[in-house]
C-alpha cells in the first residue's frame, strides 16, 4: 500500500503583533509544520512499521522557503517528498480550497496512492475542507475528522472512527482508495531522532511546477479574495489584575471567597 500525506507549512503568529493592510506584519510571523499533519505523518509511519504500507510520500504546495519544514516531516519517517511550486502561484491566494485541491489532485493522479492521510485542517487559515474536496476531485472515498484507524484493511476497507461533537464517535467503514482527514490525538507523534534528521537530508525531494503536473497556469485563479483583516473585538469587559503573582493570586482568592468557593 502506498500512502500520500499532504504536508502544509503553516504561518505562526507571535503573541503580540500588528496588522498592516490585509496581513500581519512579516516581523511577527514564523513557520511550522502543521500540527494536524504531524498526526497524519505518524499514522502513516505506524502503518509502514506494521508492514501495511510500502511507501510514504509527502506533498507540499509552497516556495523554496518551506523545504526546511518538508525535511522536518521527512525526518519522522516518510520515504520521499514532492514540492509543488510555480511563479503563477506566488500571487494566487491559497485560501481557495478548490485551487489547492486541483494541484493535489494532479499529484494523486500521478502517484496513485491507496490512502491519502491529510490533517483535518491547517492551523493558520483553518478551512478544514481540502481533504474532502480532494477526495471528490479524484473520485476517492473519504472520511473527515478521523480519530482512530484500524490497522488492517480487510476487503480493501478502512475501518475508522470519526470524532463527532459531544463525546460521540461514529464508526464507519470506508472503501479504498480513500482520503482520511486526521484529527489530533489519534496517536502520539514521535520526535525525529538524530538519525532520522540526518537521513531526511538525503531523502528525495522532487520539485514540480504546474506544467509538470499538466495544469494550465492561465486557468488558475483563486475564487476567494482576502479583503480585510482586523483584531476581534473583546466580548466582555475583562478586569485584569495587576501586580506580582502573590498580589494577583490574592485578588483572585478574594473573588473566589466572595463566590463561596472552598467555604
Amino acid at each position, binding site marked *: 500500500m502506498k500512502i500520500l500525506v499532504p504536508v502544509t507549512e503553516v504561518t505562526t503568529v507571535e503573541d503580540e503583533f500588528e496588522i498592516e493592510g490585509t496581513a500581519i506584519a512579516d516581523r511577527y510571523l514564523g513557520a511550522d509544520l502543521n500540527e494536524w499533519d504531524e498526526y497524519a505523518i505518524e499514522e502513516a509511519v505506524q502503518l509502514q512499521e506494521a508492514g501495511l504500507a510500502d511507501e510514504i510520500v509527502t506533498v507540499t504546495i509552497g516556495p523554496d522557503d518551506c523545504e526546511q519544514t518538508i525535511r522536518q516531516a521527512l525526518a519522522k519517517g516518510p520515504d520521499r517528498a514532492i514540492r509543488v511550486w510555480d511563479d503563477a502561484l506566488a500571487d494566487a491566494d491559497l485560501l481557495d480550497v478548490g485551487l489547492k485541491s486541483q494541484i493535489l489532485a494532479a499529484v494523486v493522479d500521478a502517484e496513485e496512492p491507496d490512502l491519502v492521510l491529510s490533517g483535518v485542517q491547517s492551523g493558520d487559515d483553518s478551512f478544514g475542507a481540502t481533504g474532502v474536496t480532494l477526495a471528490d476531485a479524484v473520485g476517492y472515498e473519504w472520511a473527515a475528522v478521523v480519530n482512530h484507524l484500524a490497522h488492517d484493511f480487510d476487503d480493501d476497507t478502512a475501518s475508522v472512527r470519526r470524532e463527532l461533537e459531544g463525546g460521540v464517535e461514529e464508526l464507519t467503514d470506508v472503501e479504498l482508495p480513500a482520503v482520511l482527514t486526521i484529527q*489530533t490525538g489519534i496517536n502520539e507523534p514521535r520526535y525525529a531522532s538524530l538519525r532520522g534528521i540526518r537521513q531526511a537530508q538525503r531523502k528525495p525531494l522532487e520539485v514540480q511546477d504546474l506544467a509538470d503536473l499538466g495544469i494550465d497556469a492561465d486557468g488558475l485563479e483563486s475564487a476567494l479574495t482576502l479583503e480585510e483583516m482586523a483584531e476581534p473585538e473583546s466580548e466582555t469587559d475583562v478586569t485584569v489584575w495587576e501586580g506580582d503573582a502573590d498580589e494577583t493570586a490574592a485578588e483572585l482568592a478574594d473573588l473566589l471567597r466572595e463566590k463561596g468557593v472552598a467555604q
Partner: protein
Amino acid sequence: MSAVLAVADHRRGELRDVSYELLTAGRALADDVGADLHVAVISGTVDDFAPKLDRDGVDTVHTVDYGEEFDHGVYTQTTVQLATELEAQYVLTPNSVNGLDYAPAVASRLDVPIVTDTVALESDGDELRATREMYGGKVETTVSLSGPAVVTIRGAEWPAAEGTGDATIEAFDPDIDEDALGATVTGFEEVAGGDVDISDADVLVSVGRGIDEEENLELIHDLADALDATVSSSRPIVDSGWLPKNRQVGQSGKVVTPDVYIAIGISGAVQHVAGMKGSETIVAINTDPNAPIMDIADYAIQDDLFDVVPALTEQFQ
C-alpha cells in the same frame, strides 16, 4: 426567484441546535439577494423534523426520506441535485463534523467555491462577503467571492430562528447512485463517560497547553484540592493522554456551565470556548494578552501560571 438552500444537521433522532441558527443565517442571506429560503432535511424521521424546521422566514422545507443516519454520499448527491434544481445561489450547512464531511464535496461537484466556518455573511446579489477567523482566532478576516458558493456557518454565532412559519413542506425524491456510496456507518459510541461528570461541577479548574509537562499537572490538582473543585482541561491535554477524555471541555468533549471556570494556560480556541462560554464567571490565567480566552474572560491575570497557581493554592491552605 433565486434560492438559498440550507441543509439541516441531525443526529440519532434529534435536530441539532445549529440547524435553527442556520435558518436565521439563511433568511438574512436570502433577504440580501431577494431569494426564497429552502431548507432540506435528509435521512431519519424527516416528517417529524419538517414541522420543527418550519420557523419564521422559511419558504419551503424539502424532506428526503432516504436512510436513517448521516451518510455523506447520500447528503452530497441529494444536496447537489436539489441545489441544481432550485438553481440555488448559496448552499448553507453547519460547520459541524458532518457538515465538513460533505459540504466540500458538494462545492466540488457544483464547481463553486467553498468558504467554511463563517461568523458573519452579507451579499449584494453577486458578491458574497464572509467573515471568518484565522490564526486560531487571533484575527478576523473578510473574504469575498462572486457568484454561487457553498458556505458553512459556525455554531452559536447566529440566534436560533423562532416562531412558526408557513412553509410549504414537500418531499424531494433524489436519484441516489448506490454504487457510489462507499462509506458505511456501522455504529456510534459514547466515549466521554466514566466516574467524573465535569458538567455537574460548580467550580472547574481547567488546564491547557500552557502547563507544558505532565508532571506539572500536580500544581493543578493541588489547586483543585484546595478549592474543593474539579479538574478539567482543553483538548491538547487529553490528546497527550495526561487526562482522560471525560475531562475535556469543548466541542468534541463536554459543554460545562459552572459558577466559576478558571482557565489556566488555555488559549481559548473556538472549539474550547464553545464548551465553556456559558460559565457564570470566567477567570483566565495566561501570559498572552491576545489569547482569545481574554476576550470572553470576566477576570484575567496576565502572568506565568507557574507563579500564580502555587500562590493561589497557598491562599487556601
